């Protein structure tokens, strides 16, 4: 009985530019924490090894501190770690791996496969790695799995990074191809893959583990690792997904038309938790009161969630009579307000809406005591 933890796409050193500084820092940190959790899970389950299918680092030239921190995060599991380079950290003439090696940061129990050579792990199975030695390759690096003649009868496990032909969406980069049915053709007990950030089964013996900590707004089952148990080569491996992610990346799109739409968004915002990374995209129309409610709910949610991206550029404001009365927008100010409202349908709707909001805010400020609502 062989057991190992299959993971991939750690993307250590990734910077989340779309977020504010503190949020970006937390998400950066989260990737180290995910590795710590992986080590802890591996130790708890007593697996024979942890196999990492590429893209361990997000870039070749990351800071020295980042390299050292990664290997420190792996300390929780003293068994064998097998790492292969992916397209982000390919084993180039000079690579992050050379640096890690020079720094002496790689512990003895961590095997970094920079060359396609088989080796026996924990005396139980032969590992066939397909490390990327170029950023992009158009040849199938797993081809040698099929031609390799074993010198023993240990089960063989493949580890590769790339796109299995014909199963991933067409828009995914077609470089670093892997032939479909490679596990079958090479007589592998299991083929562990990386590159696709969600967990995905390709065939009975081939899996993408996905990234252990989500890094984008796509509902693709990311944030987990695969626990693999193999009885024998002839049997199918038993694969169990283990959750490893901390942050919950969600995306919400809402077209606003009636007041209850506002309430729904407000409700969603009220329901956020500390580990949520939320992207809200609003369109349609709402009145000033509704907008004030949204703004208030957003403020409250921002204080609770890890990070919120707010996109309301497509939202149009329709001030109601009540809005205008509330603002005491009489005389020429009232006329200006009406005109801005109409301008929202013209060539520069955003400008008109922003000006409308600014006017509403200033009017609110001018009459704080009589203001309709905060």
């Amino acid at each position, binding site marked *: 009985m062989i057991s190992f933890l299959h993971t991939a796409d750690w993307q250590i050193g990734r910077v989340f530019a779309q977020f504010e500084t503190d949020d970006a820092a937390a998400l950066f940190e989260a990737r180290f924490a995910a590795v710590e959790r992986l080590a802890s899970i591996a130790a708890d389950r007593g697996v024979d090894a942890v196999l990492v299918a590429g893209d361990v680092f997000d870039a070749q*030239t990351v800071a020295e501190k980042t390299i050292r921190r990664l290997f420190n995060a792996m300390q929780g599991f003293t068994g064998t770690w097998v790492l292969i380079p992916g397209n982000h950290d390919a084993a180039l003439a000079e690579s992050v791996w050379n640096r890690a090696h020079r720094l002496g940061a790689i512990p003895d129990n961590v095997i970094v496969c920079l060359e396609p050579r088989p080796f026996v792990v924990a005396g139980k199975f032969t590992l066939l790695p397909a490390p990327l030695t170029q950023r992009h390759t158009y040849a199938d690096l797993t081809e040698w799995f099929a031609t390799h003649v074993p010198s023993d009868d240990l089960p063989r496990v493949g580890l590769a990074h790339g796109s299995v032909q014909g199963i991933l969406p067409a828009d995914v980069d077609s470089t670093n191809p892997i032939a479909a049915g490679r596990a079958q053709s090479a007589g592998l007990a299991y083929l562990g893959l990386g590159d696709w950030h969600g967990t995905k089964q390709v065939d009975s013996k081939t899996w993408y583990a996905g990234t252990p900590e989500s890094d984008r707004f796509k509902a693709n089952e990311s944030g987990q690792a695969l626990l693999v148990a193999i009885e024998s080569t002839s049997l199918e491996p038993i694969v169990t997904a283990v959750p490893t992610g901390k942050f919950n990346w969600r995306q919400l799109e809402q077209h606003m038309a009636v007041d209850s739409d506002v309430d729904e968004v407000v409700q969603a915002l009220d329901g956020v938790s500390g580990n949520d990374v939320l992207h809200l995209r609003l369109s349609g129309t709402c009145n000033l009161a509704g907008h004030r409610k949204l703004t208030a709910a957003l403020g409250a949610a921002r204080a609770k969630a890890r990070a919120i991206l707010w996109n309301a550029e497509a939202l149009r404001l329709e001030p109601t009579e009540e809005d205008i009365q509330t603002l005491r927008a009489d005389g020429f100010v009232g006329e200006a307000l009406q005109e801005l409202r109409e301008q929202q349908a013209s060539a520069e709707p955003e400008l008109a809406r922003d000006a409308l909001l600014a*006017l509403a805010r200033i009017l609110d400020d001018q009459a704080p005591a009589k203001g309709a609502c905060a």
Partner: protein
Amino acid sequence: MKLKRVRIENFKRFRAPLELCDFADGLNLFVAPNESGKSTVAEAIRAAFFERHKSSAISGLRPWSDSSATPSVEIAFALGGKPARLSKAFLGKKRCQLIIDGKTLEGAEAEDHLGELLGFSFAGKGASSPEHMGIPGLLWIKQGTSHEIAKVVGFASDHLRNAMGDSLGELAATSGDEVIKAVETERNQLLTPSTEAPRGAYGEAIKRRTALLEELQLLRVEINAYRIAVDRLAALRLDHGQDGEARPWLTLRAQLEQAQVKLADALGLAQRRTAQELLLKQASAQVDAQRQQLQLMARDDDAVKLREEKLEAAQDKLAQANGQLQAWEPRHAQAEHASMRARDRLAAARQVATWQAQEKAVTELAAQVQALSRSHRQAQLKQEELTSLQAETLSLAMPGAELKRLREVTESLRTAQARLDAVSTALEFRLQPSAKVQVAGVQVNATDRLTVVERTGIDIEGVGRITVLPGGEGLQSLIADRDQQRKVLAELLQRLGVANLAAAEERERQHVQRAAEAKAAKSVLEAHAPKGVAALAVDIAALSTKLTEAKQALQNLTEPVGAETAGVSVSQAESDESTAKVILEDATSQLNDSKLAVSEAMALLSVASEELAAAQATLADPLRAKRKADASHALTDALANETTARAGVEALAEQLRTLNVALLQQDVERFERSAKQLESAYAQRGSDIIRLEADLEAKGALGLEEAAADKQRELDHMERRCTELERRAKALSHLLKLLTEKRAALARRLRAPLQRHLNHYLQILFPGAGIEVSDDLSPGRITRVGTNGAETGDFEELSVGAREQMGVVARLAYADLLQEAGKPTLLILDDALVHTDKDRLGQMKRVLYDAAQRHQILVFSCHPHAWQDLGVAARELSHAPGYGGGEPSTP
């Protein structure tokens, strides 16, 4: 509001009450000359309305002569058709009462109520100031202020706006201006007001974004360079590995070796050719040498013949030289003999000449000694004579001055005596021969003539004594003078040792004579002994010695004897001797030459003989024939060798012609270079790899991509911020423009009624003109049609006169506006149109007359004639009850 009656008491020049009644509802014209209190009336009305009755700041209203008086005003007026009465007393007995609507209000309450009704307020403290006067401040024109309007309009603006608002029945924005201000403030935080350029936080964000972009760009460039370097390293390693295995330079090395062998072969042939060429050269040299030797041997025979000829010639020369010698030997002996004889004769002639000369010298010397001795004797005599003459001269010598003095004194005495004689008494005697007469004891002769100068007794024997007492003037002084001269003369004579002047003169003559004689003696002496007598004696002694020596020398000479001594002079002998000598020398020289020629010829002969002997010996050598035969053989051998060597050289040259040594050398060079190049490229690549590795190692340590990602994050953040701020700035700018436009449109609507009233009056004053109403409701730009077409200008740019007219017109328009809004109006013009010309004043009168249809207007003027066509009777203040009760004022 209509005034009905005004009563003033104790106001400036009006101490006694002045009452003005029967005010018309329309125009009221009050005329009075300057300083007759017309402004005081206007001032009293203002004080009644505007000044708190308790204010002490208006002490200037008191009559100038009475500091304790209580100025008081009472005004009866109608407001909204209802009668009202205001009475106010200031300073002394302060009081205020307003009776209106049947109510009576007192004090401050009355004042405040009035303010509310008329549209003004009171100063917090002290005298009222223009900003509190509101509508009356605007409508009541003080003397000389009608052209200043903007400020007073400002003070009345709230009231005016109210009036207009009411008239339009439209609401202005409650707090529109504050909204605009807030928007503007916010806009100004992000954009500059003038050009709307980013500033503040927005400006900073843009700057930061640019900086970040640049920094990121730099990082990207570095990352790209790093990537390229990594790829280069991979490529280098690949090439290096391939070269390390293939070692392409080894092939080239093999090719090099082959080329080297070929080249060595070619070089060997060339060497052999060189050796062969050397052999050929040697053989040729041998041929030449043998030929030369044979030629030399042939020359020996010729040499013997030549030597024999030479010997013969030498023998001929010797014979010739001997002939010469024999000819010259006797001639030489002859010349020698002649020369010897000439020498002897010359010696004898010289001996004779010497003796004769010495003899002559002795004679001459003796004569000299005799002559000198004679002179010496003469000189001695003369010397003695000179000495005695000099002594005599010295004894006769008299100082020249003394002699001169003696002459003078003698003359003086003679003169003095003459003078005395002239005045003395003369006594002439003619005596009888027996008579004995003595004068002063001296016997007188018979015919004597005497003179007396002093008391003189004449004793006549027998007769007794007759005393003569000479008289005459100055007699005594003359006597004294003469006596003085006489005494001086006596002294002088005594000193000189002479009896009288004549003696002195004689002595002087003798002195001169002696001196001349001494001089002559001295000349003679000098002729005999120029250097003195003693020197002459020395000369004589010296000459005597010489003479003695000469005599001795003569005695020593042998006196010449013989025949030869006579007749031949020394010079003749010398000439003969010289001629003989020349002849001898010539003979000697010729003899010597002959001898030399002989000896030379003998030497030549000897050499020629030897040479001939040698040459003959050579020819006679038995070995010589053998040597000649040997040489012939050797020449034959050498010629054979030469032919062989030449053939060898030609054969090798033929062989070499097919081989190109230079090309072979180039081949070697080329292969060697190529091999080296490949090797060094390999080494270079090796070191490049090492360098690149080190470089990448160092660069990798910088964590460029992570840094770039971080920078990108910062930049994205800044982009978001810039976008937000830009949107905000744009929105605010847009909003501000919109609000400003809306406000302007509203303002235009609000000002419309005022505009209408203003246009009404303007058409009367300037037909066809148009005027804008400013934001502050004061008159703004005016457009008039003049001779040059339409002209537009600001109100403030108008002349004072035009502004004055416009000021009144504007006020009338405000009054119309206020009246429409149901507000009370009253216009007071205190000398308001003083800068206006006659024509314009005419127009203004039409304007005022028109306005008076709606408003009560009080016009105060000091020009009654100017206003006589206003349509109302002018009222003169002096005719009012109470006028003149006060003292004349001095303002």
